């Protein structure tokens, strides 16, 4: 067994953190953690810890970014320098730009931007502690924070990643599975309609494996959506 050949799931289908193939890591959600923001959400998902804060709608500056018929979403995904064991250089990098872009595009499909022409809604996603799947946690936290801020939305966006480890498809990869696994399939789902707003894939999956990962993501998204709704109604999940 060499580097990369780590055994991540045993013969009984138990993963290295004790979960079964379809299990999601423990999730907790807290709203209103940034009092000065118009809406905010802190989501702990396994060891991931993410804070999303919403500011706006506000006048879009500079004026060249204004759209006459709708608002623009200014999404900034940022990992804190201390969020991983290797220090991350502060500021934007190629990865954070990409994640900010795909997050903005996923959120644009649910936020009713046409109600706020010429304005801007700032979405700040800060990763405090990163384990694996931070883009999924960031997107889900941002959608809950937007709802908390009172921004009109047609649905929430719930994002989960499934993947393949040791030739077995599993749901919600942890750090070891993400690093040493064979494939990763993050998805963003609108739980009330079942529509897909975000899909990326890293690695190779056969059509059957893809379907299996898809089903895991869809089922997990429905469960996580219930947590989000509970948090929106009571301020936190679990109570």
């Amino acid at each position, binding site marked *: 067994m060499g580097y990369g050949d780590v055994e991540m799931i045993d013969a009984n289908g138990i993963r290295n953190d004790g979960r079964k193939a379809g299990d999601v890591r423990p999730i907790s959600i807290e709203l209103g953690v940034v009092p000065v923001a*118009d*809406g905010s959400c802190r989501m702990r998902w396994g060891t991931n810890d993410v804070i999303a804060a919403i500011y*706006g709608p506000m006048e879009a500056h500079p004026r060249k970014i204004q759209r006459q018929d709708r608002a623009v979403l200014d999404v900034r995904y940022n990992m804190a320098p201390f969020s991983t064991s290797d220090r991350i250089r502060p500021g934007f990098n190629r990865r954070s730009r990409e994640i900010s872009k795909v997050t903005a595009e996923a959120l644009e499909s649910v936020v009713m931007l046409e109600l706020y022409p010429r304005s801007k809604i700032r979405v700040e996603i800060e990763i405090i502690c990163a384990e694996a799947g931070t883009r999924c946690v960031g997107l889900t936290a941002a959608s809950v924070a937007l709802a908390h801020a009172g921004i009109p939305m047609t649905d929430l966006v719930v994002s989960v990643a499934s993947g393949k480890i040791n030739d077995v498809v599993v749901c919600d990869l942890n750090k070891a599975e993400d690093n040493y696994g064979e494939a990763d399939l993050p998805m963003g789902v609108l739980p009330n309609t079942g529509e897909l707003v975000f899909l990326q894939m890293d690695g190779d999956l056969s059509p059957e494996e893809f379907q299996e990962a898809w089903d895991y993501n869809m089922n997990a998204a429905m469960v996580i959506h219930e947590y989000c709704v509970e948090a929106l*109604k009571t301020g936190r999940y679990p109570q």
Partner: protein
Amino acid sequence: MKGVLVARLDNMTEKKNAAGPQDKQRVTRLVAPGEDLGDLEGHELGHGVIATDGRIRATKNGRMNVNGNTISIEPIRTAYVPRPGDLVIGYIEGCTNNIWFVDIGAPFNAILPMSLGPSKADFGGTRSVIDIGEAILCRVQEVEETHSSVVTMKGMGLRKIRSGAVENIDPHLLGRLIGKQGKALRQLKEESECRVIVGDNGRLWIDGDFNGTLEVRNRLRSLTAEAKAVTLGGVA
């Protein structure tokens, strides 16, 4: 609020044999964006809901109100959206030779032209009349489709605020502060012996002695805390 029986769309439909409440009664429950609120047929859409594929869906996080056959959502948090005729308290953010730009707590700054200002000033003399950072009591005169608004200071009681304090609360809590036919606000004014002017944008001008101002501030703080407690307690 635990243990309170709350009427819901689903438990109200049993007797009616219809997809939603039909009688003129008020029911309330907490909803999240995207939540299905029932069949569109026989219902009218109020604030915070949309119709898709013959179903009514929530677009905001808040309390669902069914008033007669109109379904609407009273949001838990909301930004102020100006409407013509609103009495607002604004801060001057900037000015040109003949226009002031006023922060009224909306997504966009309002403009106050010299012609609608408090007094006549020479061209270029806007800052000598109202300077940047000063607070004014004004009224929204016009709101365009693009959400730009014009405010006026021509009218009874509209003025520059020279004394007292300006406080903020969320605009959707104003109803609770004012009470039915202004009863709660009147009581607050009497108790605190302060002049309290409530702007529709959630800003209040409190003018009175120190203790009175403190009393009004405490009332505002408890109102915000109460609203939060009701939400966290879970009405639904």
